[in-house]
């Protein structure tokens, strides 16, 4: 139960003001070594020496500390403003749907509710649940108390997402998820005839994304493997069940019911359903852009054996992709458009990623590391292209003419991303 969010930190933090003077907390015990290195590094980082990687680790630690030491009232005001805007949109949007018999009210209400739901899940929910705002010590904006407008309960998601996905980012066989059995997203995954359905499954997954995540968070695979007990599954199922009932009642019973006196019951139902679907498709797209576009790496377990803090950072950089765009775009993606920065520093306040990105890009350049980014349409296209490509067996690489006998030799895996279908961010 370590704070994975703090994983690579070893810098002392200051605590308390006892007797006027701040007492220095000794450095957090590094879970990862500061020096040394794995037997071999991912190819994109193979040119770096142990000393390079160590220096890079220190630079990124310093960057993190700099942001932490300047967190303050402005950041607190930011998240409160976003929450205020989101709640206003939610109330006004839902209220407008009560009159959705009129087409303009239907369109406006659905649009506002969609935006509210997107903000709620992405810029607010995802980031609060990461503990990005815990430092404010506001019990109303805290990772231990937050519940979101998403069918999967916050507690279940925090475990699979914060503990598993963020720790084992793109490590084959470790960063497990529902996509593994249903979607084929990596060349290294063996092809089965069933994978021909890849695009169809993904197409259905997109508008029902929250349900995909809810199922993923139940960790059915872990139950099958005996890593998770049946009792735990029962408990989780109950929690999801309760959440589903509440979410369903709100959007598909109470809202339409309230709209009925205005003759707008049916339209309101369509409105809430559409808003959920729009939010789901949007979240699905953003998540796919985070780890599946071209240029994103996956890793083997040998590659992380002996991983240092610097290597951990490098893995986060190589295994993530950003989305470029306007400020509004960044907010609507919950700043997961700064996926690289988010993966290196999952618990920094999201509004600060933009400034981290400037330095991160410079650091990548200096160390000769790729920094994958692109506009949303391009990244979405590449992710979908992968879904289609991997529906078919890997195309064998052209073989030298005189090597015909080697046709059946195992195809060396091409690097590509793992399916992180069900891990928002």
């Amino acid at each position, binding site marked *: *139960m*370590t*704070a*994975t*969010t*703090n994983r690579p930190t070893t810098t002392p*933090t*200051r*605590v*308390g*003001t*006892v007797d*006027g003077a701040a*007492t*220095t*907390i*000794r*450095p*957090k*015990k590094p879970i990862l070594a500061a020096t040394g290195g794995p037997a071999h590094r991912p190819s994109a980082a193979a040119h770096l020496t142990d000393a390079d990687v160590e220096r890079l680790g220190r630079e990124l630690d310093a960057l993190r500390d700099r942001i932490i030491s300047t*967190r*303050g*009232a*402005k*950041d*607190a*005001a930011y998240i409160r403003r976003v929450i*205020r805007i989101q*709640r*206003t949109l*939610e*109330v006004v949007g*839902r209220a407008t749907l009560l009159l959705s018999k009129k087409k303009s009210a239907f369109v406006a209400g659905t649009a506002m509710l969609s935006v509210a739901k997107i903000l709620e899940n992405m810029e607010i929910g995802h980031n609060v649940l990461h*503990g990005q705002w*815990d*430092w*404010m*010590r*506001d*019990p*109303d904006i*805290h*990772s*231990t*108390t937050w*519940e*979101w*407008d998403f069918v999967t309960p916050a507690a279940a998601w*925090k475990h699979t997402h*914060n503990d598993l996905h963020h720790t084992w980012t793109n490590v084959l066989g470790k960063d497990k998820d529902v996509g593994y059995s249903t979607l084929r997203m990596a060349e290294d995954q063996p092809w089965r005839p069933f994978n021909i359905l890849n695009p169809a499954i993904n197409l259905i997954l997109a508008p029902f994304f929250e349900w995909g995540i809810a199922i993923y968070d139940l960790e059915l695979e872990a139950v099958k493997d005996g890593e998770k007990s049946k009792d735990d599954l029962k408990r989780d199922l109950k929690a999801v069940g309760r*959440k589903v009932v*509440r*979410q369903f*009642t*709100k959007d598909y019973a*109470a*809202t339409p019911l*309230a709209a009925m006196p205005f003759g707008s019951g049916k339209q309101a139902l369509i409105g809430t359903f559409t808003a959920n679907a729009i939010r789901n498709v949007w979240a699905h797209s953003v998540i796919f852009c985070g780890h599946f576009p071209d240029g994103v790496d996956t890793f083997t377990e040998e590659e992380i054996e002996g991983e240092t803090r610097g290597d951990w950072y490098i893995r986060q950089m190589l295994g993530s992709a950003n989305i470029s765009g306007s400020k509004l775009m960044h907010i609507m993606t919950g700043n997961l458009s700064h996926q690289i920065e988010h993966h290196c520093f999952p618990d920094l306040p999201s509004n600060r990623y933009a400034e981290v990105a400037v330095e991160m890009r410079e650091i990548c350049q200096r160390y000769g590391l790729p920094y994958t980014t692109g506009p949303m349409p391009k990244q979405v296209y590449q992710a979908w292209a992968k879904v289609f490509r991997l529906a078919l067996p890997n195309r064998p690489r052209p073989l030298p003419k005189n090597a015909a006998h080697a046709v059946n030799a195992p195809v060396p895996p091409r690097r590509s991303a793992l399916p992180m279908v069900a891990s928002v961010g």
Partner: protein
Amino acid sequence: MVQIRALRRVASILTTPRTPEDFLGLVNPLVSSRQLRGVVTKVVRETPDSTTIHFRPGRGWNQHAAGQWARIGVEIDGVRQWRSYSLSAAVGHDPAVTVTAIGFVSTALARDTKVGDVLFLDTPQGDFVLPEHPRPLLMLTAGSGLTPVMSMIRTLVPRRPDADVVLIHSARTRGDALFHDELLELADQFPGLQVRHWFTREEGGRRLDLSGVADLETLCPDWRERAAYACGPTDFLDAATELWQREGADGAVGDAPALTIERFAPVLLDGVGGEGGLVTFEKSDKEVEVGGDVPLLDAGEDCGVVMPSGCRMGICRSCLTPLVAGKVRDLRTGEVHGDEGELIQTCVNAAAGPVHLDI
């Protein structure tokens, strides 16, 4: 009331996973039932270092008894900070606290609070309160220790013709003395109150001496007949306690103990801090390596854990947190203790080796 609750239930179907209050909070910040808040209605500069902050509390506040204190939360640099302050207003009036700037939070409160600001609150508590039955009283205060006593005086003196209160208040100078003019006016107006100020500067730097009875005998000859209340700095209270014990006046006068004291700061043993260790906050999924002299409460708050707390000095037990594993050191006594499941007062206990807390 029942209707409101029913309405709330219905509304929450539409607001889940938020509460209706979360949305009402958009218009009225005081409405939250989960977090008690107060809006500042008046700010009065009392002395160069002290400020009285009047506030209108939201739903969930209980009227205080004269002498009680409340936890006040304020945001400084975006971070919620909590400290305890005695309520200085008379019972029945809108509550107020009088804050003397001596450190981080008090300075921010005393200097930066403006009308309209929102403070976070906890309900009043404490048993430094007036005796149930009327009796002659002696109030012995120094510095900001006057605040709880001021609430007692404001509550008692104007309302009870039979009140008989002597206040001995020590301050550095006339200008530093809290509520100076108001006290003299009250004493003028009501025969039940006698005020004796002791200004250390004017006494040639001589502090009110409680190591012997001489000063007391001069200022209040019948002090032995009075139920006494004392509030002030640690050494002041220590001297008073010792004096009352020595003079045998520490028996009960009627149903009230002869001397009741209120401390603003914990009495920590010097140099009890030991090794410290890695503290894990299980539910919050946070861990931090701390020194052996840092209260677990501060350690938790510093890494963003929402820790329960109250007085922050080992008296109210609001901070009790279950220990999962490890040993802790009581900073008041130096004692190392810790059984699994034991409830730890985090404000006065530090890590003695690795500690796991259930929060």
